[in-house]
């Protein structure tokens, strides 16, 4: 626990943490405000694709909960991947892992505690993005001239449950970046690899055979695990796997990737 708290202390004051959160929050705010403004300027314009149904789902309760979660997760996952890859790689490049090991700390404990700290940071970031997203969507709805809709108890409860699932999914996805950086012992290698994987994950879905395999890989299962509601009558946000199955697969990937990261750290020769 001491290591986890120390990890939070070292990560939460880092410029990269604040910049990553700021970028993610700004992207979310822009998304909803722009949609609201575009709809207001040209309601039901077939050229911008913003039909009343779509905009209502995006900017009014209860639909906006899923919309905010989906967009928050979409932006947040790429930023989280890069952030975690950088944070993990810096333990090697800064030589701080070296100090901990030379002080007699267990390499495995250090690797797992560092990831636990990052997971808590990601959770806080996700919660902030979600709250800002809700506020932005409401603001976007007001700009669009739409009524807010209704937010009842079950919807709110469902939203919190989905937020927790989104956090687990985000942590599962981040474990890919963490494992890559810990194996590569480098920030740049970690960042480069996860960006490559992220881009590849969008390309492979175009090929049916690969898509069938890909749906069980972390990039796909993590988003399916959240159980985003899709816009009625469209495939927007539609999942490839049942959310519960996807959640189990995501957790399995998380455990497996953390085991790989821990073993890689345990066996590594620490130089530099």
């Amino acid at each position, binding site marked *: 626990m001491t290591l986890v*708290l*120390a990890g939070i202390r*070292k990560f939460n004051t880092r*410029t990269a943490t604040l910049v990553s959160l700021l970028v993610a929050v700004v992207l979310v705010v822009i998304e909803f405000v722009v949609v609201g403004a575009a709809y207001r300027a040209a309601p039901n314009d077939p050229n911008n694709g913003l039909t009343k149904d779509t905009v209502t789902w995006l900017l009014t309760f209860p639909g906006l909960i899923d919309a905010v979660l989906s967009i928050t997760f979409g932006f947040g996952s790429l930023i989280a991947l890069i952030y975690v890859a950088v944070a993990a790689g810096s333990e090697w490049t800064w030589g701080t892992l070296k100090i*901990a*090991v*030379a*002080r*007699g*700390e267990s390499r495995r404990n250090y690797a797992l505690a560092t990831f636990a700290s990052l997971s808590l940071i990601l959770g806080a970031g996700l919660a902030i993005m979600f709250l800002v997203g809700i506020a932005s969507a409401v603001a976007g709805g007001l700009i669009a001239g739409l009524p807010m809709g209704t937010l009842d108890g079950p919807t709110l409860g469902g939203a919190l449950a989905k937020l927790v699932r989104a956090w687990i999914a985000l942590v599962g996805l981040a474990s890919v970046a963490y494992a890559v950086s810990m194996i590569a012992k480098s920030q740049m290698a970690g960042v480069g690899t996860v960006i490559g994987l992220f881009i590849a994950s969008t390309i492979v879905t175009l090929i049916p055979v690969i898509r069938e395999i890909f749906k069980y890989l972390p990039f796909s299962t993590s988003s399916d695990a959240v159980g985003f509601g899709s816009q009625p009558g469209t495939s927007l946000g539609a999942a490839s796997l049942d959310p519960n199955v996807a959640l189990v697969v995501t957790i399995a990937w998380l455990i497996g990737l953390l085991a790989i990261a821990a073993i890689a750290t345990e066996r590594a020769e620490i130089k530099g």
Partner: protein
Amino acid sequence: MTASATLALSTKDLKKRYGSQVALDGLNLEVPTGIVYGFLGPNGAGKTTTMRLLTGLIRPDQGAIYLMGESFTGANRQLLYNVGALIESPSFYPHLSARDNLRVIGASGKAVTRSRVEEMLELVGLRDRARDKVANYSLGMRQRLGIAVALLNDPALLLLDEPANGLDPAGIVGLRDTLKNLAASGKTVFISSHILPEVQQMADIIGIVAAGRLVSQGPLDELLATQAIVRVKVTPAESAKALELLSALAGDGHVSITDAGGAWLTVRTAAERSTEVNRVLAQAGIFAAGLEAGSDLESLFLQLTQPTAPEQPAGPYAGWYAGAAR
């Protein structure tokens, strides 16, 4: 398996390779408790590899390490709770202050109290700058902080790699006093350094490593006494004759030409025999242009780590080349 309880640190037939490169080739160290041990060697001799092995950062291919008499295998990492280390350049979180760095680093390994953190900041003279980000620290301040990290656990054994690197003169004097005091209080200090005069002032025992092997180890005074030399400079034309005369005086194999121009000859003999060396040459009509006698650590180091004088290119880089070849 245990080693002698009077040894704070020892290694037995320690070997390590990086691919085809042999870094250590059967290193046998013996570091008694309560002394300052100077670990010397030219670049690439295996000093840093030894430090990494002693702190479990890398694993040996063969051989054994004993810390405070106990076999250190990596599985019993808790032995390192009693070891403080500064290996290569000090490593920190640049966005954190010195105080926060010590607290975060102190969360790993043996638990460290807040008062100990403050005590170490005071000891290394960083109390007034403890709230500044380490990113804004000078090299010397980072080095001081590195020493604070090494001392954080109040270790029985201190492993320091070039500890005086970047320190100002006052810092070097302070470091020297601190390390001597630590040794006097029963702790063991193991210093790897290139700053030979510094080591000469601090070390009780030295070990010299070359090409991954220990070429000499023992109390500094004894080693210097056995390695005393007299150096004499003659003209290159007279060097062969001088070599012959001095070999007759000191014995075959005790005289060597130690520079490319053939003008400096090194005679392995007591410093007191320098007048005798001068007289023998003068009687043969060879008048020394320079005469040095002594048993300094640098001479010892060079003799032990440079068994044969390499061929050197002429020109301004001749000396550097010789150093690099060693």
